């Protein structure tokens, strides 16, 4: 019985971690202030 509880805790922790991280997601950031280029840049 104790082993089952320990396994359930492990499973729940994995689910909680993945669901939380995916719900938070990555920050979207902001549109770059750099322009659409009309001159040839010297380097990348």
């Amino acid at each position: 019985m104790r082993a089952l509880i320990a396994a359930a805790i492990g499973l729940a922790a994995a689910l909680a971690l993945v669901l939380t991280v995916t719900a938070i997601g990555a920050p979207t950031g902001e549109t770059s202030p750099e322009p659409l280029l009309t001159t040839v840049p010297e380097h990348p």
Partner: protein
Amino acid sequence: MRRKACLVLLAFAVFCAALSPLLRWYAFPRLVKVPADRYQTMVLEAAPATLIDYGTMRAEKVPKITIVQTLKGNVEASEKIEKNDGDSSRDVVVWDGLSYVQGPDGKLVSRIPERYIFDAHSQEPVHARGESVDGDPVEREGIEFKWPFLTEKRDYAYFDAQARVTEPIHYKGTQRFRGLDVYYFEQTIPWTEVPLPKTLPVKGITPQSIAGTGTTRWYTTVRKFWVEPVTGAPVYGEEIHREELRGGTLLGDRDKVTAFSGHVKMREDYIEDTVDLVKSQRVLVLLMTSYLPWGLLVLAALLLALALWLEARSRRPGDPAPATDRDPEPQPANA
């Protein structure tokens, strides 16, 4: 004490075993995406090339044509589309792009702006207001600029912005390119009538004035991409590109004149920069699809083995019986 350690190890083993598939098949498709705020430039050159002089309407050999391509993620536009879409979980990327072509003297040859809207995870096109090429509304099918993450060895539908058509781009094999295994794709667009660019290099000459003479613009290209399959990012590209003006009174007694002809290739410093970027991003994707899932599975197996070993040791017949909390049995008192 050993019992407790066994249970803790078992819990960690299940945690790792469960995390492994969850990372690969739940987190990866949701977390790995093209960032909405990406800003990227690319320089391509055709040296030498043939270019029309709109003043004389004659084709001329020039030493070099340069194409500056900018892709700029428009975060505000992507958030607006996501809001209007009704599905808040969908990640949309809006790329405002500009292909600016300049001649050897640095003067404008043509400029083609476009807006490309796509799903950040699958790179499937998303149809929304503003999707366009050179100011004309379009509805793309297939991919453009970038392949999906975990690119497969198969043909893809690729959108051609000049002709505004989607044609297959064929997988032609795996090659080694600057330390990376890449998939080589090739697409041929046969001679097709295409619209004249809205911006032409000579004042007074407009697409309408050329069209009024009955002259039409035709285009063919062989497009080649070397794509790193984990990220789906092209690390190198070439295009054998030809354009002609055909018919109409503008050409006098000629049937056609070459408007542009050249073998367009990425500039060397941009190849190096792209390869470096793709190598670093590739590791991040592999972390989610391979390194972490397999690492966690191995760790889970080790933890489980350790838990079982500890449990077996605690039950060995030679070992002293585990202490219990029960009171000792009462002994008969001898008077």
